[in-house]
């Protein structure tokens, strides 16, 4: 059928682009690299739109494309599951990716790794599409690891910076922890259902709900709870939930376009997507949902606090991403999967917009990322200013903008949820609204309004990025504006994606809320046990249309909290900049706690890294050097070498020796067999 070829085209087009840009990165000129990759992603986007229309017409698909390996009773296949959930993700991924590709032309303009960068982001698009289009756990895991790999490569894109190498190693290691849980979960699924295919697994899952297993001791665990928590640990790593969130802020070492694409809009939401896809499993375990809910709530609130004290423009947005991922996770915990996906979609648009806006500011500021050195950029970069304002307003949940619909739906869904932990989660997401508004507008005011602080001698402020010496990588990247120099608006390839992303950031919520949350849109893709987890059903009772929701919101608590957050940040950073400093002095211990990010990094470094190093050293000295190297490796190598030099002696070069060997061989065979017969 024609549609199947189209499905295949979606991931393969970006892969083709990545291969052209990657394999020939040394020989092709820059325009070939960006044309090939952008064409690949554009084809994928157009195909996704066609598939989306087809799916809306009711044509879903679930089937294999290629059988990779059959081992015993298990079949490992590459296959596609095309339904509304998949197509939603495909549209988001290809659209944001396309925007980022275009933006990159401007952002990486002076970078020597231009072609390599394009190859990576196209490869990422391919991997992400394979992940979301999968119809089985194996391909999901492949996509999962592939996006992780590309993320690793891109965080360390400027590989001569020690901090970038540190950050990508950290991201890789932390994700290992998550992936370990994930693969355990997949292993449990395979063991108990005998299949890796989604449809088969979901069909068998209800029968497994009553099974208990022993993990250790005599404690009985519900199989579904263990499986779901294991899978969720995978999601925690990829979607940066506490305590596996530590890699995401550091990932900002990578170039800004990938921060937008991978570490805000798409890859980090893979965990959210995965849990939604697994809704038939998660619905079977209220305990697992409670865990999801609480972890999400902690992330949503406490990562927001950290956003308040950051001075690096990208880190503010990064902590805001962490907090928003927490919101999505909370929605998953409340069984409001469709709301989580809805927020994922709106967030993808406005967060990509904010990141790309931040990148545009960074270009304007000549790669100075410290917001204390900015101010008053409104005049110099009008398009960046307007689009960033739109993004910020969407983020804090201004009524009628996209973020409002998704975030308010989450808050209401949590309010209506009755599973353990829902009370705390409700408080956390509500408080989070105030915090989000406060840090978002702190950044906004510091960057675009107030006194112009750039162009001064500001060496003392270089605490985050000022000391990065990337001269070897990109000679043109000098830091900050010279005294007297003014920022300037960025070229069209940079601001055009901003404008194109601002449109859905404003409008998509209003358009999509009714069909996505309350219509039949996700029917068949997401499964909810309404009897046990009824918040979505109750939510639908309260809903009277998108316009009514927006008007009603003006009288509710979240709106006032958001408004209060904006007002307070305006007062603090525009009117009385002395107050924050005074507060900082008063509550030094809390500030220190936040400054050290709740000591997560220190703890990890001391306990896990230190412990691992100690263990590693022990094994190295005792096990590796003595036993393995000494006896097994070198010993066996010596043995093989010895035998090999002996066999060599047989090859004398004399033909009568050769003939003799043949005759002996014949003689031996004959003696053995003639005696037998």
């Amino acid at each position, binding site marked *: 059928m024609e549609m199947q070829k189209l499905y295949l085209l979606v991931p393969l087009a970006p892969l083709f682009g990545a291969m052209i840009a990657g394999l020939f990165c040394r020989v092709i000129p820059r325009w070939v690299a960006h044309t090939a990759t952008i064409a690949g992603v554009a084809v994928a986007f157009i195909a996704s739109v066609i598939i989306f229309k087809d799916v809306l017409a009711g044509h879903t698909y679930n089937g294999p494309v290629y059988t990779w390996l059959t081992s015993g009773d298990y079949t490992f296949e590459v296959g596609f599951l095309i339904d509304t959930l998949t197509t939603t993700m495909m549209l988001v991924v290809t659209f944001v990716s396309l925007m980022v590709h275009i933006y990159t032309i401007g952002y990486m303009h002076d970078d020597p790794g231009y072609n390599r960068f394009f190859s990576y982001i196209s490869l990422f698009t391919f991997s992400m599409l394979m992940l979301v289009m999968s119809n089985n756990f194996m391909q999901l895991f492949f996509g999962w690891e592939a996006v992780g790999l590309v993320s690793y490569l891109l965080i360390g894109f400027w590989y001569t910076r020690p901090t970038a190498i540190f950050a990508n190693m950290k991201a890789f290691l932390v994700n290992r922890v998550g992936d370990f849980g994930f693969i355990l979960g997949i292993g449990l699924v395979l063991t108990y259902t005998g299949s890796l295919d989604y449809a088969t697994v979901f069909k068998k899952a209800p029968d497994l709900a009553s099974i208990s297993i022993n993990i250790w001791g005599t404690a009985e665990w519900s199989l579904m709870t263990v499986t779901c928590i294991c899978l969720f640990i995978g999601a925690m790593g990829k979607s940066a939930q506490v305590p596996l969130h530590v890699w995401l802020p550091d990932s900002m070492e990578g170039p800004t376009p990938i921060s937008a694409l991978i570490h805000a809009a798409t890859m980090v939401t893979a965990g959210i997507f995965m849990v939604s896809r697994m809704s038939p499993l998660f619905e079977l375990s209220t305990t697992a949902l409670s865990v999801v809910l609480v972890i999400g709530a902690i992330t949503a609130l406490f990562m927001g606090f950290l956003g308040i004290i950051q001075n690096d423009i990208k880190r503010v947005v990064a902590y805001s991403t962490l907090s928003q991922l927490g919101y999505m996770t909370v929605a998953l915990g409340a069984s409001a999967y469709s709301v989580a996906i809805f927020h994922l979609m709106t967030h993808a648009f406005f967060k990509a917009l904010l990141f790309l806006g931040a990148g545009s500011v960074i270009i304007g500021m000549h790669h100075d990322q410290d917001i204390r050195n900015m101010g008053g950029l409104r005049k110099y970069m009008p398009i960046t200013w307007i689009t960033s304002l739109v993004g910020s307003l969407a983020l804090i949940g201004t009524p009628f903008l996209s973020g409002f619909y998704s975030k308010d739906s989450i808050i209401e869904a949590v309010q209506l949820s009755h599973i353990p932990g829902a009370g705390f989660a409700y408080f956390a997401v509500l408080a989070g609204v105030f915090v989000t508004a406060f840090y978002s507008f702190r950044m906004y005011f510091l960057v675009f309004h107030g006194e112009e602080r750039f162009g001064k001698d500001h060496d003392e402020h270089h605490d985050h990025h000022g000391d990065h010496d990337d001269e070897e990588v990109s000679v043109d990247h000098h830091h900050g504006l010279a005294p007297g120099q003014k920022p300037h608006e960025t070229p069209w390839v940079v601001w055009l994606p901003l404008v194109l992303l601002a449109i859905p950031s404003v409008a998509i919520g209003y358009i999509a809320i009714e069909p996505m949350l309350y219509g039949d849109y996700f029917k068949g893709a997401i499964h909810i046990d309404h009897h046990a987890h009824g918040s979505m059903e109750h939510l639908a009772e309260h809903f009277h249309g998108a316009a009514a929701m927006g008007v009603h919101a003006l009288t509710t608590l979240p709106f006032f909290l958001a408004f209060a957050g904006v007002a307070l940040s305006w007062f603090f950073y525009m009117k009385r900049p002395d107050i924050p400093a005074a507060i900082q002095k008063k509550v030094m211990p809390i500030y220190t706690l936040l400054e050290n990010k709740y000591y997560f990094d220190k703890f990890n470094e001391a306990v896990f890294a230190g412990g691992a190093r100690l263990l590693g050293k022990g094994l190295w000295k005792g096990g590796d050097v003595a036993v393995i190297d000494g006896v097994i490796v070198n010993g066996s190598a010596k043995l093989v070498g010895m035998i*090999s030099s002996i066999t060599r002696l*047989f*090859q004398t070069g004399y*033909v009568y020796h050769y003939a003799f060997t*043949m005759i002996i*061989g*014949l003689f031996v*065979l004959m003696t053995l067999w*003639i005696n037998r*017969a």
Partner: protein
Amino acid sequence: MFDNFVVPDLLPAAPELFLAAMACVLLLVDLLVKDQRRTVTFALTQLTLVGCFIIQFATSNGQIAYTFSNMFVDDLMADLLKLFLYMTVIMVLFYSRGYIIEREAMNKGEYYILALFATLGMMVMISANHFLTVYLGLELLSLSLYAMVAMNRDSVVSTEAAMKYFVLGALASGLLLYGMSMIYGATGTLEITGVAERIAMGGVNKTVLVFGLVFLVAGLAFKLGVVPFHMWIPDVYHGAPTAVTLFIGSAPKLAAFAITMRMLVNGLLALAVDWQAMLIILAVLSMAIGNLAAIAQTNLKRMLAYSAISHMGFMLLGIVSGVVGGRVDPNLVLNAYSSSMFYVVAYVLMSAGSFGMILLLARAGFESDNLEDFKGLNKRSPWFAGMMLMLMFSMAGIPFFVGFFAKFAVLQAVVISGYVWLAVVAVAFSLVGAFYYLRVVKLMYFDQPTDASPISAPMDTRILVSANALVVALLGLFPGDLVHLCTLALAQSL
């Protein structure tokens, strides 16, 4: 006298007849060619092979056809193996051309004509349904090869290698003939399918039969080059001009596989328990000696020679796991033999590519056949270093190259038949073998080049070597069709 002479059905042997006729025509044409580069001879040779390919393809109707009084058979296995054979020889001749032109002593039309006669010999072997036909094809192949090895007659190494090959080959032919005569003595026929029928009827003297079988296996083992009948391989591979080594190291393996199938499986399946046990001994010895001795080599051709020994040992594992406990289970048999066939085809591809690489790097007065010569290839040409890397990875059996799937298929057959210990041994020796393949990779990527001159090979060789390596990679990703073809071809003749 000629009253009851019936003109045999010539259609099943049409490609052979065409090739024979063309080879004779070429002998004459070559006399008239004045061109030093022998372009006409070369082009006609290749066209002949393409013609054979087309005729083979066109006359193949999926039926088994016997002709020449049942001495000759044309079935799907023959069709498929011959198609692979033509492709291999065409590829080999393209690789060799640059090498031959640059070497005065070899730059003659005879090279191509001998290659054609050798090909004819292999075709006859593949289609043999009579012990004498097997012998006829084998001798035609061998005699052509002896001459080819000795073509560079001013080279002491080459002539010595040819001499050794000739003497040992004659000995092996003797063994084979003696075995055939014993089987004739026991069954009263030399027709392969007839032998199977006679044994099935009963009343055959088992001792005489097994006596013959031992000699037959010895002769086959020489042709396959498995221990202890392998001694000629390193010397001949090393001593022959690389273009000839490439020829010996690729296409004849297909023919050797075919006569093994014809004689042992089609003819003597009733003795499977006996010959399987013999082949197990030969296979284990080959994998051991082949892999261990390869480590000590400094010459790449010699290393690949030992590698060939170990690969043929590995291939035999599939043939030994067909019959379990004396019972012939059609599915098991088919699975086992088709895994071996897949292995042979995969090996021929990898072997041709590897020797092709040597030819690619060789130039006038420089053979480039030492491991040293591959040092730092990545600096000289990252593309071809990448190609060689794929070939070496595939030879070592690293996923996902065709070599991996070939090993995987054979091991699967071995395990299904219950020889788990044999699979363990095979994997252990493959691990030892991985060392010397990976050493080539290490030399290419981590060492400094000793010779920085750029690659001067002609474009057709470059493209073909690249295509060859890429096919090795591609078949690793999509092995399904080839596996299916092998199964299909063997299903008919079993």
